[in-house]
């Protein structure tokens, strides 16, 4: 009962925030700030997938930048070489990333803990190194220049403001899909697998199938985000998809709260904002950023969303439960 009530209240708060956010371009007139918000929106899509993977099935991936890269390069190359329209290219990029998710999911189902982490790190690095060295196709370290802009119903998305609404719409669809997955039979099975693999298996759950499907879902989220990222930036190179990028996604996931869908939104926007706000300090900016990470995981073990829930739990109507 309590969970339904707080869930509804959470959803209402989220919708209110969203309506407020919708008007952002009217008062954020600084194009750079809008650019950062747009980037944070794209990152959120990656973190949504990561939360389904790590928060719901307990599999940690430090290679999401690899799927993100596949999404970017596949859609960009399809658009540039065969003039395929954005949405078809994006769909193919998403499917391609999903296929790679299955490829890495197969060895991953046997692994856990540090071994799984290392396998995903290895995957991310392999993708980056192939992009760097497969020069005839990927243009190597120089990267791709002039990735075409997306069109929506014949309308070309050009300015930061246009992108803001495109990314906001994608984000809404992404959050909706992620919430649906989390609430469905699949989501509940994921949580069962995460809590106790043996018990879930005893209940007749095919664990391997679910583990692979979580990888595919997270890869598809990252792949779609990547296709948006390519068209949004216009240029891309293997430097955009380093191990540090994967680490960044994981930090967003954990700091926001990886066992929650809204946590992904909070983590991605929160960490991006903190990292930008710290630019005023110049020199030791990332030292403080690192300290914030350490501080948060020690004092807010369930992420920012965990802190919210704890506050709400202490001040809301308790008689319900």
């Amino acid at each position, binding site marked *: 009962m309590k969970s339904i009530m707080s869930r509804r209240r959470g959803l209402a708060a989220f919708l209110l925030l969203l309506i407020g956010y919708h008007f952002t371009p009217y008062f954020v007139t600084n194009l750079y700030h809008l650019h950062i918000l747009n980037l944070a929106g794209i990152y959120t899509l990656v973190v949504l997938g990561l939360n389904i993977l790590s928060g719901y099935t307990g599999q940690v991936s430090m290679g999401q930048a690899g799927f993100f890269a596949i999404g970017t390069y596949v859609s960009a190359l399809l658009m540039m070489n065969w003039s395929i329209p954005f949405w078809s290219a994006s769909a193919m990029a998403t499917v391609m990333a999903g296929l790679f998710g299955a490829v890495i999911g197969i060895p991953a189902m046997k692994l856990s803990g540090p071994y799984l*982490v*290392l396998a995903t790190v290895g995957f991310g*690095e392999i993708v980056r*190194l192939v992009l760097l060295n497969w020069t005839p196709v990927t243009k190597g370290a120089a990267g791709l220049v002039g990735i075409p802009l997306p069109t929506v119903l014949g309308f070309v998305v050009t300015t930061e403001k246009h992108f803001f609404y495109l990314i906001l719409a994608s984000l809404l669809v992404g959050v909706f899909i992620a919430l649906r997955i989390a609430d469905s039979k699949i989501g509940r099975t994921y949580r069962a697998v995460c809590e106790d693999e043996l018990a879930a298996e005893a209940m007749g759950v095919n664990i391997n199938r679910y583990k692979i499907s979580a990888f595919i879902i997270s890869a598809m989220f990252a792949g779609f985000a990547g296709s948006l990222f390519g068209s949004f930036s216009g240029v891309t190179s293997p430097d955009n998809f380093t191990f540090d990028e994967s680490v960044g996604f*994981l930090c967003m996931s*954990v700091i926001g709260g990886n066992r929650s869908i809204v946590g992904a939104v909070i983590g991605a926007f929160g960490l991006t904002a903190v990292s930008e706000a710290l630019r005023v300090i110049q020199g030791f900016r990332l*030292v403080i950023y*690192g300290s*914030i990470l350490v501080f948060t995981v*020690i004092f807010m073990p369930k992420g920012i969303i965990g802190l919210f829930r704890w506050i709400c739990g202490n001040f809301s109507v308790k008689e319900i439960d």
Partner: protein
Amino acid sequence: MQFFLNGLPIGAIYSLVALGYSLIYAASGVLNWSQGDMVMLGAYVGFTVFFFLKLGFISALFLAIVVVALLGALVQYMILRPLREREAPPINVVIATLGVAIICRNLALGIWGPDPQILPSPVSSRPLSLAGVSVTPQDILVLSVGITLMLILHSFLKNTREGKALRAVAQDRYAAQLVGIDPERSDAVAFAASAGIGAAAGILIAPIFFVTFNMGASIGLKGFVAAVIGGLGTIPGAIAGGFFLGVVESLAGGLISSGYRDAITFSLLIVVLWLKPSGLFLRKNRQKV
């Protein structure tokens, strides 16, 4: 043959870094992502001692080991102990050590600047020809100091009180506590020892590669790969894994393609993980440390 030999010195470095991962993992079950940055800090401390305090190579090596080892123990007491007390999930521990890595890297950037530095070698780097293959005195120095450090670590674990306590904690944390061993202290010993051998690795590669603030990322990752290929949490595994990785890299770079060298290494890693997750060099009964 030449490629095989070229792989040995870098293999020794990987072994040292891998030992750091395995020691900490065996003692406390923590995956320490700041291991590579201890290597970087070791190289910078050595560089500073050498150029600003004008002390010799040997004292640079010792001071770097001591300073970075203390830092390692500090990380355990300040960051990992509170996490353990709060029973934080493993992913939080991963993020915490990544945070430490980010802090170290950027402190180094702030202190020593972005330009690559170089530490001169105490021996000449002119290759010597021995029975048809060429080796540099620097390679021999790296190998001999590396192996000496491994032997010191071995006798530390086998013969000293702290070393025995550490092995007891690695075997069974609760049982060790029952006989009066403080596991947090043993963790600190493991962190200090790991950071110290990492620092030594940093000094040893400083004359070969440039010292930069972000050198820890790639060397740390390679050390981790070596530790897992050999069998994470075991000392012989870490050593064998390091040399194996060094030789494979050298062969892949020399015979197949230097651009795809690291991609080949990581593909091999995934295959190893898939087929034999307990590591290449261990039989069924895995014994920690």
